[in-house]
């Protein structure tokens, strides 16, 4: 078995043989990332799978609102040559569509549904991608987009407790300290097992 640095070089050579990555980043001994064009994603994933990267560990998206795109991240793992390979691809934020990788990695089914639910990315080719998975009866924009305001949603949707007294100030008067000691003694009296 080759050592791990050779494994990273092996992946780099494999990717360079198949496509032309926009950017290559070696994160560590066991991780390497490639930024590829949207059209190359399926090509490179097929090549990696044939070379032994048989497990799709994760598929998710990152929202970049200033640059107006989503960055999809596919993380694949090979159990013979222990290297995590990240394939990143940028897609338009206004119309986020990318073909499903279901024929290559059947395990992508639920990741794609999750990604659609939280970011609104569409995955044609996956028959179930529009079904709800985690959120139920969601009625707003997808919640992990950066322009979604969770606090405003929470204020609108869930009743808040109203406090008439401010309990956060601690009072160190003698009478209060005595009460506090009584409380501690009560708590200790409830403790089972060996008495200290």
């Amino acid at each position: 078995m080759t050592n791990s640095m050779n494994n990273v070089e092996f992946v780099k050579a494999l990717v360079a043989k198949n496509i032309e990555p926009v950017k290559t980043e070696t994160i560590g001994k066991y991780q390497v990332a490639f930024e590829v064009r949207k059209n190359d994603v399926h090509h490179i994933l097929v090549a990696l799978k044939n070379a032994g990267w048989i497990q799709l560990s994760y598929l998710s998206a990152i929202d970049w609102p200033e640059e107006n795109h989503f960055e999809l991240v596919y993380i694949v793992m090979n159990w013979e040559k222990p290297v995590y390979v990240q394939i990143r691809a940028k897609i338009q934020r206004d119309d986020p569509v990318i073909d499903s990788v279901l024929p290559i990695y059947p395990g992508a089914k639920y990741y794609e549904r999750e990604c659609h639910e939280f970011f609104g990315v569409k995955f044609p080719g996956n028959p179930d991608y529009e079904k709800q998975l985690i959120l139920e009866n969601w009625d707003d924009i997808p919640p992990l987009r950066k322009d979604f305001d969770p606090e405003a949603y929470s204020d609108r949707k869930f009743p808040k407790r109203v406090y008439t007294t401010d309990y956060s100030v601690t009072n160190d008067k003698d009478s209060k300290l005595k009460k506090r000691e009584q409380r501690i003694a009560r708590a200790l009296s409830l403790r089972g097992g060996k008495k200290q």
Partner: protein
Amino acid sequence: MSKEEIDRKWYEIGDFFRRNSLWLLMYCTGCCAIELPPAMTSAYDMERLGMGPMATPRQADILLVSGYLSLKTLRRLIYTYEQMSEPKYVVALGSCPINGGIYHDSHAVINQLDQYIPVDVYVAGCMPNTESVMNGFVDLMDQIKHKKAVGWKKYHENHDWYKANQIQSLGEIDVHDEFHE
């Protein structure tokens, strides 16, 4: 003695046995559930208060909500609460059911449990000590003794108000997912 007085006496006797043999249904939604193993095992030994875990909602007395509740779990919690036989009590652990706690601005987590189902005892803390948890159980026994643990009656009296709150936050209480259809 009149019939009402006799009934009340019998109910008090029933309460005596009830509060000394409470069965918990542990709805371990959040991180406060980690306080239950020490409370149940030899360190604090819940059994000496006559309490024990129960597997099904129909046979349990206490619904123990330990920690935050997302909308999805709240839907199941209401199902569970309505399945329990009366009298039933609710104990909520941690600051999340009280006012949202560290999840007060989350899109998925509710802020105040007593808007949806009546809560008899809150145990504050993030997370509460096991002493506080035990104290909460003792407080619940005191409340049953003094006939103050009447959350399940309030749920009957204010049923419309609770249902309106549930629908306002949940949209729909029925569970529709691919595993139940």
